[in-house]
């Protein structure tokens, strides 16, 4: 909310249509109540230039941009290097990932685009060579929360080792307590998919048992489960039909 809007209290609740707009004047003793349709509510207007100039956050961002290292020969960056290649043709980009397939795909893309100043390697961050160089910008998006704790312990020391003086590192992470909400869903999904957590290995065992002509306990259980599922679907269809007929 920008200056000039502090004294407006709006109620956009969907249950109350038309929406009630309460505007409290600074010099008025009681609120002036207006009733308008939702589509007639005033649209959010961008703050004026003077308001922008007086905003501390914008000023801080402008100052930050001014103080950041300027792109020059030797500027390097980790991760997501392709996006800024066109605007920083003299920069050098280095990217690495533990997963081989995304790196192979990125290498193909860089090759197709004819980008010669990008180096992409498949690498464990615990085995980053000390002579990799120093970087003005280091970007580690999401990584911090997606790796095991013992690997995460290497992230910050690695950044400290390779960040150039006055360089900037961007490290994103899933933060608590907000992430408790996401974690609840994540745990539920893990619980309900616990049977297929190790699917490739189980499939291999079952295939081996089938070749040997052995009916495993697992196979018996699977057949019973499928029978049960078929019965459930039949009943559900019948229920739906009945429900549709009665309503």
């Amino acid at each position, binding site marked *: 909310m920008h200056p000039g809007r502090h004294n407006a209290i709006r109620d956009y609740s969907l249950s109350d249509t038309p929406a009630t707009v309460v505007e409290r004047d600074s010099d008025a003793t009681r609120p002036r109540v207006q009733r308008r349709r939702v589509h007639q509510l005033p649209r959010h207007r961008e703050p004026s230039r003077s308001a922008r100039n007086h905003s501390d*956050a914008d*000023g*801080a*961002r402008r*100052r*930050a941009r001014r*103080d*950041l290292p300027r792109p020059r020969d030797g500027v390097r960056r980790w991760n997501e290097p392709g996006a800024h290649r066109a605007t920083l043709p003299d920069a050098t980009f280095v990217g690495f990932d533990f997963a081989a397939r995304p790196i192979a795909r990125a290498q193909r893309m860089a090759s197709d685009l004819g980008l010669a100043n990008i180096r992409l390697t498949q690498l464990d961050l615990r085995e980053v060579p000390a002579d990799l160089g120093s970087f003005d910008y280091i970007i580690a998006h999401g990584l*911090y*929360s*997606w*790796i*095991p*704790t013992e690997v*995460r312990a290497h*992230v*910050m*020391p690695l*950044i*400290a080792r390779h*960040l150039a003086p006055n360089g*900037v*590192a961007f*490290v994103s*992470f*899933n*933060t*608590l*307590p907000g*992430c*408790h909400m*996401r*974690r609840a869903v*994540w745990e539920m*999904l*893990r619980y309900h*998919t616990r049977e297929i*957590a190790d699917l490739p290995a189980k499939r291999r065992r079952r295939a081996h048992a089938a070749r040997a002509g052995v009916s495993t306990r697992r196979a018996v259980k699977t057949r019973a489960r499928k029978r049960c599922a078929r019965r459930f679907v039949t009943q559900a269809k019948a229920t739906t039909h009945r429900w549709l007929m009665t309503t």
Partner: protein
Amino acid sequence: MSEPNLPVYFHEFMADAAGAGLTFSRRDGASTR
């Protein structure tokens, strides 16, 4: 699904960064925005 998802509190993140000698620059306002 098998990947770890280990969210941390901001103060833990700060402590980890500070332990490695990294600091948040308040002067230029580029810290958390």
